[in-house]
């Protein structure tokens, strides 16, 4: 009992620290958000402003922008701690790495994923999405960004100390199912079709992905510190 409570206090400690750090530098959670909105507004500029055309493209546009914004911020998950030695300190403390990964992914998601949800609300006006789509859009982004954070953590842990572009090349092909399912959910919702089956599948991926990808990330970190 004592053991679990110390683990939980570690989790809270790391989470608090990461959140405090990112609130100190406001850029870490504002920049992915603004990046997302910039990418979204590039599409009307490039493709024209016809309402029906834009709203037919919007699911893809929103998801590609979310994918890029989430991966843009991925470098910060482990690299910063690697550089200033925090990661070494934690590993020396002998606490399970699992709790570190868990806390860091959750913090990353709170700092980049949740602002993306707000930004996606704004993007529904930009891309003329019908109102009924807002709920499936938010739910799919909620699950999808969490999955993207998990995948990004794996890529970041594998490429600690390397460029972010390498981690993007590794992670982007693996994130294709998230993209396809997310677009499928929104498109089905626009066409008044049943989108729940896609949503359940995305949820199932999350249920498998949380333990699976966290374990892989733990392994990736311990490869780096052998």
């Amino acid at each position: 009992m004592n053991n679990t409570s110390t683990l939980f206090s570690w989790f809270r400690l790391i989470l608090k620290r990461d959140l405090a750090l990112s609130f100190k530098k406001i850029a870490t959670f504002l920049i992915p958000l603004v990046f997302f909105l910039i990418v979204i507004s590039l599409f009307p500029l490039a493709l024209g402003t016809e309402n029906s055309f834009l709203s037919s493209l919007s699911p893809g546009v929103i998801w590609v922008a979310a994918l890029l914004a989430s991966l843009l911020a991925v470098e910060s998950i482990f690299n910063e701690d690697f550089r200033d030695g925090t990661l070494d300190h934690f590993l020396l403390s002998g606490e399970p790495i699992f709790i570190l990964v868990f806390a860091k992914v959750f913090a990353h998601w709170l700092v980049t994923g949740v602002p993306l949800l707000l930004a996606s609300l704004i993007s529904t006006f930009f891309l003329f999405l019908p109102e009924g789509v807002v709920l499936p859009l938010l739910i799919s982004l909620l699950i999808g960004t969490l999955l993207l954070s998990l995948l990004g953590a794996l890529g970041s842990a594998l490429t600690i100390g390397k460029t972010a572009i390498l981690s993007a090349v590794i992670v982007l092909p693996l994130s294709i199912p998230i993209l396809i399912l997310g677009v499928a959910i929104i498109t089905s919702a626009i066409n008044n079709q049943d989108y729940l089956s896609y949503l359940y599948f995305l949820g199932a991926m999350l249920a498998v992905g949380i333990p699976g990808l966290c374990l892989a990330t733990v392994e990736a970190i311990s490869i780096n510190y052998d």
Partner: protein
Amino acid sequence: MGSPPFFFKWASRLLPWFSPISFSILIIGLIWGVGFAPSDYKQGDVYRIIFVHVPSAILGQSIYLMMAIFGSICLIWRAKLAGMFLRSAAPLGASFTLIALISGAVWGKPTWGTWWVWDARLTSTLILFFLYVGIIGLYSSIDNKQKGDRAASLISVVGVIIVPIIKKSVDWWQTLHQPSTFSITSSPSMTSDMYFPLLICVIGFYFIFVSLLCNRLRVEILTRERNTTWVKEYLNNKV
């Protein structure tokens, strides 16, 4: 058994026999297929690309599976040789997948009129190619060979679990976006005089892959064990 010197000795002894044999199987299969198999009643002679396309696509997929198996061996037992296998197999897998993509494109031009179709199978082959490139990029960016092996093993094991999900989702994407105008799946019914040369080509491709893999492995072993006595002995005796 799994020790690098032992493997190196056997590979060096077998390769002078194995490479010519695999080359002759491949050449026999290709000559039979390209020169003597009957032409297809629908597509004419252009279908003969199948004798390169299908075996390389099969290899591209099975090499990825093989890498995941080697990768899990490398992660669980920390077997050195498994990591070397993985490292040597990845560029070959990328090569065969690339051949499958190029030959598919060249086949598509005369039969469908375009070089590329966003069909489910083509798309997943393209994604497979990207996965290979990611793995190669990962291990070549890590200086420590052992760490590079294990990182590449990890990503190939994770990848092989995600690949079925990618395939399934690509199928959904297909149904979502377009009623498929071209169906590749309904292949022209093959007669046995087309099927046998294809079978020989597939076998020949596998043999070629094994001999290429052993060649690459020998280099990998030599470079990594450069400072051991057996490598020095080998080099001094041979040169």
